[in-house]
């Protein structure tokens, strides 16, 4: 460096003495040095003042301050808001909260890690590794953050822990509200369940107001209406002792409970359906065609939402998640099945409306329908002979509808079906509804790149082939007929009431489809559907009810073989009753149930009976409900 400098032309200038004006020299030599001396003194005095003060605080008062800092354990604790209660239409509780005792460890209060963990492990019979794992999972949080070790401990366990608290520093028990479903598995798919928020969910924007350990609605209405049900957690500032026990509350902000919900579900009807579905697999939905209010909804097999609410164990979760019968699937909105003969209602409506057939049109049925190089069979081996539209619906003649389907073509079926809401979400207030599928020639071209074959139309006309619909879509078909061209969005929740009793939200009926069609069309189809149940030759004659007329249509849909095994046909029944002035529309699906007439129709019969014959007071309630 130096060497280079020496060779530099600017060397002299660079190492020259500081230069300045004469005036400045005076300044630098006389006035300013005085100021710098002052500055030095100020720095020295500052240092002395700070040191003395620190000596006083840290050395003279140090012991006392250290003691205070150790005693000084004021914590901010969350006070969980109780979740909103769900009631049925008549005010019976379907989901509420109960107090529960939860076991926590606050890492900071632990004196001897092994003593506390081993002690708790042997006392409660919890695996040591499990406790350590839970503590590790919360290692990103301040050590004063209590980590939940076990949810919902029993009274016996509570007594054990309380008796041994002295030996378990850091262990504490919190009383917190816990979700409770008094009817267990019943309505599990409708009500849904709550569960602890996952670390993935915590990262999502939608959950940014949540913190670890919070319970959130993960399924069904609990999830759909999470923001209404949740409430606002409160907070309290508490002083805790060296054991982590609360000594006193210094300040408290009460939680605001969640909002209550009144459902359209009628618990009595729901129970009837639940009973009818005992031992069966499938789904059923019943709604008021004139409002879309869902009166009952059942999906089987079901699960017990209470298990989730109290911190589901690994074994329980795996049992549910790995069950081949898929208990977590809500068949009514997520099960896609070929609609079978119930679809003939749609075919009839469109063909009549377009004038392709009328009451006089007849087709001969010899038990089969040769088309292309194969024969499409009718379910009745001997054939129905000459049938018209009325008999074709009543006796569910396949050959008649093969002919009608060919006249219609798949695209007309598709566009009409879509316009009344098939093959798309109905908009029911439950999450994850599937769309199903209503095929068209365009769809096939797009999906498979090959044109549509007429032979496929023949299958579609009777609800087989590429038609995949959900029970909730078919209840809309039934409601469409019952209402003569109008359907409403299926709605499970009726109203949301704030904790102060004020109505926050009232769900008014929302029109889903409103299609102008000839009166005559509905008359013919309705007579046919009434005949299905009430004429001796009808496919559901066995499910007729005394005094009340029910109308319906059976369906027996071929199922896709599962792992090469044919498990049998799916049984369908869609219905509405009373036929004269429909108050309820029903759709029943029994998975692998066999014939619609024997497996599905009795469920609809039980619903109609319970509503209109067995308990007149319910019937009254229903009528009142409609006039609102």
């Amino acid at each position, binding site marked *: *460096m130096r060497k280079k*400098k020496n060779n*530099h032309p*600017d060397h002299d*200038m*660079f*190492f*020259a003495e*500081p*230069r*300045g*004006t004469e*005036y*400045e020299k*005076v*300044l*630098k030599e006389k*006035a*300013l*040095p005085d*100021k*710098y001396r002052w*500055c*030095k003194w*100020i*720095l020295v005095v*500052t*240092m002395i*003042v*700070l*040191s003395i*003060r*620190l*000596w006083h*605080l*840290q*050395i003279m*008062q*140090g*012991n*006392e*301050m*250290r003691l*205070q*800092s*150790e005693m*000084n*354990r*004021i*914590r*901010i604790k969350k006070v969980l808001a109780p979740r909103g209660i769900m009631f049925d239409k008549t005010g019976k509780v379907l989901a509420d909260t109960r107090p529960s005792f939860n076991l926590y460890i606050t890492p*900071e209060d632990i004196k001897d890690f092994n003593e506390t963990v081993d002690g708790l492990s042997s006392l409660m019979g919890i695996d040591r590794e499990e406790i350590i794992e839970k503590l590790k999972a919360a290692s*990103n*949080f*301040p*050590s*004063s953050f209590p980590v939940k070790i076990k949810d919902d401990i029993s009274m016996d366990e509570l007594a054990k822990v309380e008796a041994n608290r002295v030996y378990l520093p850091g262990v504490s028990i919190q009383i917190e509200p816990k979700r409770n479903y008094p009817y267990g598995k019943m309505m599990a798919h409708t009500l849904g369940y709550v569960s602890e928020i996952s670390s993935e969910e915590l990262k999502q924007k939608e959950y940014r107001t949540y*913190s670890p350990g919070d319970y959130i609605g993960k399924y069904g209405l609990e999830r759909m209406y999470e923001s209404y049900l949740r409430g606002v957690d409160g907070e309290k500032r508490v002083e805790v002792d060296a054991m982590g026990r609360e000594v006193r509350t*210094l*300040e408290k902000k009460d939680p605001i409970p969640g909002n209550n919900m009144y459902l359209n579900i009628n618990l009595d009807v729901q129970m009837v359906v639940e009973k009818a579905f005992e031992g069966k697999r499938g789904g059923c939905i019943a709604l008021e065609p004139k409002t879309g209010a869902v009166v009952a909804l059942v999906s089987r097999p079901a699960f017990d939402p209470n298990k989730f609410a109290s911190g589901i164990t690994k074994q329980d979760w795996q049992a549910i998640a790995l069950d081949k019968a898929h208990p977590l699937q809500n068949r009514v909105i997520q099960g896609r099945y070929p609609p079978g003969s119930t679809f003939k209602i749609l075919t009839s409506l469109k063909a009549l409306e377009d004038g392709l057939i009328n009451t006089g049109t007849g087709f001969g049925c010899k038990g089969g329908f040769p088309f292309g190089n194969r024969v499409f069979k009718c379910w009745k081996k001997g054939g129905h002979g000459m049938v018209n539209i009325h008999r074709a619906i009543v006796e569910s003649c396949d050959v008649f509808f093969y002919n009608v389907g060919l006249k219609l073509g798949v695209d007309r079926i598709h566009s009409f079906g879509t316009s009344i809401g098939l093959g798309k979400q109905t908009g029911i207030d439950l999450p994850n509804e599937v769309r199903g599928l209503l095929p068209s020639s365009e769809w096939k071209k797009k999906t498979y790149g090959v044109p549509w074959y007429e032979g496929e139309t023949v299958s579609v006309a009777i609800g087989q082939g590429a038609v995949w619909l959900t029970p909730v879509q078919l209840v809309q078909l039934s409601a469409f007929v019952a209402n003569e061209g109008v359907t409403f969005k299926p709605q499970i929740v009726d109203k949301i009431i704030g904790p102060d009793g004020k109505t926050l939200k009232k769900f008014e009926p929302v029109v889903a489809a409103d299609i102008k069609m000839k009166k005559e069309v509905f008359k013919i189809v309705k007579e046919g559907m009434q005949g299905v149940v009430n004429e001796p030759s009808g496919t559901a004659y066995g499910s007729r009810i005394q005094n009340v007329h029910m109308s319906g249509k059976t369906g027996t849909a071929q199922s896709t073989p599962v792992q090469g095994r044919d498990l049998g046909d799916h049984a369908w029944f869609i219905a509405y009753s009373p036929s004269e002035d429909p108050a309820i529309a029903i759709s029943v699906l029994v998975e692998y149930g066999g014939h619609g007439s024997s497996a599905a129709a009795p469920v609809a019969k039980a619903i109609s009976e319970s509503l209109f014959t067995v308990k007149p007071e319910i019937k009254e309630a229903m009528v009142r409900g409609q006039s609102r």
Partner: protein
Amino acid sequence: MVKVDKRKLYHLDWYLIINGCALFAIGILNLVSATSSFYSGSFNFIIKQLIAFSVGIVLIAIIVNFDYRTIANNAKLFYFISLGAIILVLAWGMAAGGARRWISIFGISFQPSEFVKPVIVLLLASLLHEKKREKMLLGLKDIVITFAWVIVPFILIVLQPDLGTGIIIFLIFIAIIWFIGMKKSAYATLLSVGTVLPIIAWHYVLRPYQKQRIYTFLNIDSDPLGVGYHTKQAMIAVGSGQFFGKGYLQGTQHKLQFIPEHHTDFIYTVFAEEWGFFGSIIFFLLFLTFINRCMKISQQAYDELGSIIAFGLGSIIFLQFSINVLMNIHLAPVVGIPLPFISYGGSSLISVLISVGLLLNINMRRYMF
């Protein structure tokens, strides 16, 4: 690319740089501990602080390339820019903690009042240095004219309300006119005004919460769960550190989260709790040697302009350091003044680094024309 003159690099004040880096390193380590108890962890805070540091380093590199005289000649430009920014904050700035101190540009938040401090020093130096003033000592007229320049940002900043920065700006003004020297008559006038002004301020300027802090300062135990409660907790944190401290990351007071702003204005309590008396003394010495070095640069500056700037910048660091620590150990009322190099806050850190850049600039041009 800016061409770096190796001769100037040779004249960089490495003492100041190393001393500053030591302070910043302590600051980062301490910030890790102070923010470790936050839900989001330290990560975000550290990243943001390091980004601010890098920006500051780039600014230093730019600043040293211009002669400080050129920079001082443009002081009025900087003055009006920062004045504009403060007015923007008052108009649209987003509310933070009940105060409007921040302005957000492209998603980055600035606290313009932080940058006013070095700008005021540049401005005062450019207005008052020997080539500009008529006589060697300042007369009352000089003081009043200069004060007019200072009072505008002072009022705007106090209105935000950011009393801490306002106080610093006011004290810098006092320090600089003292440094240059005043006539005896001016001294006398200022002293008499100085006794009347606090009374006016108490009645017309201070907000209720600011008065509350002063009351609390005077009588700590009267309000154990309110403002005094936090001061008390800060004292307990410092005191419980004892001689050798509780050890790094072992502090408990701030983790219980009842010292507010323990990563910004009260960050010294975190350090004192974990490093004790022993660490604190070293910490103080590092600050005081740094400030002393600033004074040395002032003394060695080529001209009086450089002397005034260096003195002013050193004063900022000194005032912020002493007031902040005094308030942490309950020898001064609580005002929002960050601890240079140590407190979390990008604007504050960048402002300090700009000062460092100017100091290096003055130092390396001390032998030049």
